[in-house]
């Protein structure tokens, strides 16, 4: 389960994609000046982290984590269910935060008639 062991192609792809997504998202969130693009960036970071979490629990050739004698006799290796539960929760939370943020963007747009962060400067940034 540790990050370093059994580095086959699939694992590398999983981790590589996840880290790439996080970096792309962070770039968008920190560099872009449009509020919408910043939010898209934050969502991409979320996706990357979720992918990373699921990959940790992944086991090559593992079955779905359901405890029943028939399944366990056939193939005792199961993927770890905990990260999947965590990711489900994290997805829901990410969705809620994005929804709140979009509502705020709508409010800001009505107030300032722009979504450019450089032009919304009533408070010090």
């Amino acid at each position, binding site marked *: 389960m540790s990050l370093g062991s059994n580095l086959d192609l699939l694992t590398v792809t999983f981790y590589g994609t996840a880290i790439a997504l*996080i970096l792309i998202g962070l770039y968008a969130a920190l560099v872009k000046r449009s509020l919408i693009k910043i939010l898209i960036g934050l969502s991409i970071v979320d996706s990357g982290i979720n992918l990373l979490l699921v990959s*940790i629990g992944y086991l090559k050739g593992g079955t779905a984590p359901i405890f029943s004698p028939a399944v366990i006799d056939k193939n005792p290796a199961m993927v770890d269910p905990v990260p999947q539960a965590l990711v489900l929760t994290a997805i829901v*939370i990410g969705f809620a935060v994005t929804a*709140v943020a979009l509502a*705020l*963007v709508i409010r800001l747009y009505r107030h300032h008639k722009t979504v450019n962060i450089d032009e919304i400067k009533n*408070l010090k940034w």
Partner: protein
Amino acid sequence: MVGSPVQLIAIPLFAAFLIPLLGKAWKELVRITPGVVILYLLYLSVDLLNYTIEHGRVVEVIAGWTPPWGIDLVFSPFSGFLATLMLFMGLLVWIYSYRYQTFEDYDDYEPTLKYYLLLMMMITASVGVVLTGDIFNLFVFIEILGITAYGLTAYYRHRDGAEASFKYLFIGSLSSTFLLLAIMIIYSQLGTLNMADIAVKAHELKPVYKITALVLFLVAFGIEAEMFPLNGWAPDAYSQAPAPVGAAFAGIVVKAGLYTVIRLIYTLFEVGGTYEYLIVMGLITMFFAEFAAFSQTKLKRMLAYSSIGQMGLVLVAFGIGKEEGVYAALFLMFNHAIIKSLLFMSGSYLVYKSKNKYISELNGVGKMMPVTSFLFALGAFAIVGFPPFAGFWSKLAVLTAAADSGMLLIIALILSISLIEVIYYLRVVNRIYFVKRDTDLGITKPTPQAMFSMLVLGAIILIVGFYPDVITGVLHKASATLLDKGSYINDVLSLSQTIN
């Protein structure tokens, strides 16, 4: 013991979503329900606190899954003290905001409904943060806390609430990203999410993972705890949110943030140098925040920066460590909750009619609003630590703790930074009482409810000031509990043996 800790989370969560339905039956229920629920929870929490002080901590297992597999709630004198403090502040904020005028300015009752719903969720989440014994559950509660705080910050349409809220949300989202990464590192390396279990296994972590996780955790929690340089959201959120929300931020939300930092450093990890790190970060936070507060022209921003400065002092006290340091830190947290809430509550009535809330608009307001001004002055004297008010004892406790550890340089730094605090608070009090009024702004009398909750806070400041013994017993017990990591681990993990 009348109830279990899980009720402290389940009841307000249920009540929060019941509020809209009750409002359909009778609109006044929207305002009444939160108060009744919080009052009951406070009773429950005080009762549990008394029980735990005598019999040791209560560990509640959720849904029959014992730790380290399931989620557990830990009600110890330490977490229970914070939960009780939060509920008490929640009750006062509710009293203060009951029929708060600007809420009633809106014609429909929809905004009022949302306010109470979000306030209930905020209290639920804060209590959840301090009670939970599972790091992923902690993440969920922090996110609930965040979302409600963003919502409440953007409450006023006519202010720049949405801007402050977006800023807060952006920083908060980054914080949750870091938190999730840290949780992931812990889970991938140790295969557990339970705090006690992590504390047992922490030494198995490779140093590189340990340091990475620690840094990610500190960044994530530091944002909520207003630690420098992650506190950019605070002044805007405090100044744009409605007054009772500012008080709730100071009394409830920041306490939850601080708790996470403390739990992380005192229970989860033992890494050399973290205590020194707390002291250094605390001093830097204090230094920048107090200078920033000194140069503010707007009242609420000044109070917000002062709040950050106080959090810095709390971090220093926790960094001193040992029982004395922790005791001083908890005392400071208690004092900050009551005093800063009083300052926000009375201060916002002093500048109620003003649009920009400039400090200069306070000139001569003392003659027009004698009671509110007196309460503000009382709060100002208490927070800078003049005897015989509550703040004096906590500052004295910090200095004694530092002196006993031989940290003379820190004493000198704390005292000199506090001097700035004294100057800018006295400057405001001076304007209130001794400068002639030069604006034609009218005044708004506080509602009787608001006056009541301010008077309660003022009374507590005086009572704790004259008889600090009413609170010190609980504080000593709480700090002893926090430091006794072994019994925490034992109490939580022994459950799996006794029940199975």
